[in-house]
């Protein structure tokens, strides 16, 4: 399922068949995930929940970079915005669901000015500006310590499992469901965006800005829209993070988070929603894998904390040098190779 398989079709913003298809996809996945969570232990439920919020952030980012060609190194900051929004609202007595929705909306709102600026910047200038954003925004928590909890951050109580589900559903499973629900919402929205007229215009703009502008496409608006949508997904991810981990602090959203997101997107395959799923899996599984590795090799805590990032760095470099299209690109190439063989053979 490649999100870039969109064939140019005439017609309006979102065609009915895309909506139906995406709904079917989301419902199907929801069923599968519910069944899967029944079989998982509580630590694995947590990992699934983490994978879910990573997916939301990665999916938004991969659509931004892959579709509009604009890079953002600041999506960790949008996650922080989402997480803190949920923290503050739940602290005020809001229920979780509206709080998470608000997280997505607030991030979208902040994404507007950032996106407008981003639409006017190119390549390394954009990268540098979003980098500064990633470092600068979390530092603001120290500026308003009473409101935002300073360096220690904010905490909330874990979300209560609704009574109608009874005692069969543990807290961890409920949190996994919350995460997955959020991820599926993001998937639904992004799938429709990618396969719509807007998605096509974005790709046209990415490939040749001048030509697109000559065709009457409002380049800046399209790019701002893409940025806002992806920021909103990152905010949603942050909200889910808050729902699952019940904690938000500046230290949870360092620059390296934004760079991990970039890694996930590149590894999975830029521009591919399926790739975002691969990337999310790696971002969750790699650290626990390297932790076991560090344990078994009896490396000190220094190595433990840093090993995943050392590997991310090497992976980013290696992929860019040898295999820029990532996992999904590799799968795509493999499938093309095999279908060619079948045709010829």
């Amino acid at each position, binding site marked *: 399922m490649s999100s870039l398989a969109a064939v140019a079709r005439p017609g309006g913003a979102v065609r009915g068949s895309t909506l139906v298809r995406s709904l079917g996809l989301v419902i199907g996945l929801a069923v599968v995930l519910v069944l899967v969570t029944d079989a998982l232990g509580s630590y694995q439920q947590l990992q699934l929940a983490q994978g879910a919020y990573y997916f939301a952030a990665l999916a938004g980012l991969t659509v931004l970079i892959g579709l509009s060609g604009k890079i953002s190194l600041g999506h960790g900051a949008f996650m922080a915005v989402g997480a803190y929004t949920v923290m503050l609202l739940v602290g005020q007595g809001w229920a979780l669901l509206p709080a998470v929705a608000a997280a997505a909306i607030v991030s979208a709102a902040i994404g507007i000015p950032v996106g407008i600026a981003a639409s006017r910047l190119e390549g390394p200038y954009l990268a540098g500006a979003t980098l*500064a954003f990633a470092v600068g925004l979390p530092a603001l928590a120290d500026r308003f310590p009473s409101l935002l909890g300073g360096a220690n951050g904010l905490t909330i109580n874990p979300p209560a499992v609704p009574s109608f589900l009874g005692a069969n559903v543990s807290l961890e499973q409920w949190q996994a469901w919350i995460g997955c629900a959020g991820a599926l919402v993001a998937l639904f929205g992004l799938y429709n965006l990618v396969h719509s007229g807007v998605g096509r215009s974005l790709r046209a703009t990415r490939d040749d800005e001048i030509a697109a502008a000559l065709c009457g496409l409002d380049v800046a608006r399209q790019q701002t829209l893409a940025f806002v949508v992806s920021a909103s997904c990152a905010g949603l991810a942050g909200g889910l993070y808050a729902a699952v981990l019940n904690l938000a602090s500046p230290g949870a959203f360092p620059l390296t988070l934004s760079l991990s997101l*970039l890694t996930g997107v590149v590894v999975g395959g830029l521009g591919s929603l399926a790739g975002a799923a691969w990337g999310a899996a790696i971002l969750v599984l790699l650290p626990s894998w390297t932790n076991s590795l560090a344990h078994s090799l009896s490396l000190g805590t220094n190595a433990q904390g*840093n090993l995943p990032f050392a590997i991310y*760095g090497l992976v980013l470099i290696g992929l860019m040098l040898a295999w820029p299209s990532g996992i999904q690109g590799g799968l795509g190439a493999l499938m093309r190779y095999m279908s060619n063989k079948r045709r010829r053979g």
Partner: protein
Amino acid sequence: MTKFIDLTLSGVSSGAIYAAVALALVLIWRATRIVNFAQGAMLMITTYIGSELITSTGSYVIGFLAALAGGLVLGAVVERALMRPVENKPELNAVIVTLGLYTFLVALAGIIWGDTPRPFPAAFSILGYDVGGTHVLFAPNDTFIVLVVVALAIGLGALFRFTDFGLRLRAAAFNSEVAELLGVRVGRMFTAGWGLAALTGAIAGVLVAPSVFLSPNSFDPILISGFVAAVLGGLDSPPGALVGAAVLGLVLSYVGGYEGTELVPMAALVVLVIVLLIRPTGLFPVSKGRRV
């Protein structure tokens, strides 16, 4: 009033550091059209190398020179091994490679040396001067910093304008194809450019380490400030980088002093965004793209 003077002087001193980093970024940009986001991490590694040698030999000078030599080698190796394959590919690829390098180097430093900040000796006294009875927050070491960076800038300028090597470097940067047709081994020039840039960065690292302490992430703000300074001046312009760095050093010093240090990164961002919105290619753009 004294506060204003103190802030101005410390702004000059930090501006000098930003200038060195900005020069490193500009050098690489002019040569290979890449922004080296790993510059901060590279100069962090060379500063650790310097630190190790100062500890083992007891000599500041040896450590200083070791850091510089390390920079030269590191820059050359990175260009040859990592950047060469992506120099002609889409911009995004090179950006991601430098970010991957940044991630790797910071993690590597954490693994080798740990995350705990360690002190780094200053070359000269860090006690502020006494000017006519008032104690100023500007010390002999700050004078050293400013003098070294000025000498560096003059040295680089002279290298480029008056030497054959500098002429080849510039030619390779302005028009690599024509330079090749004139017998310039462009690949070697790019490697040399990166080596020089990393050496410049290494100097910045050693100069600023005493005040920020040495840890894998302690140079991140310097990279961002150096980048903003370089962009302010226009990525193509070394003199612009110096001006941008001076301006930024002062602005950030005032913001930090009057409003609070936690606002400094955000202030750098705001300056960056304002400048880029007015002039998307910096305040002193030099050339309008490449000629065939």
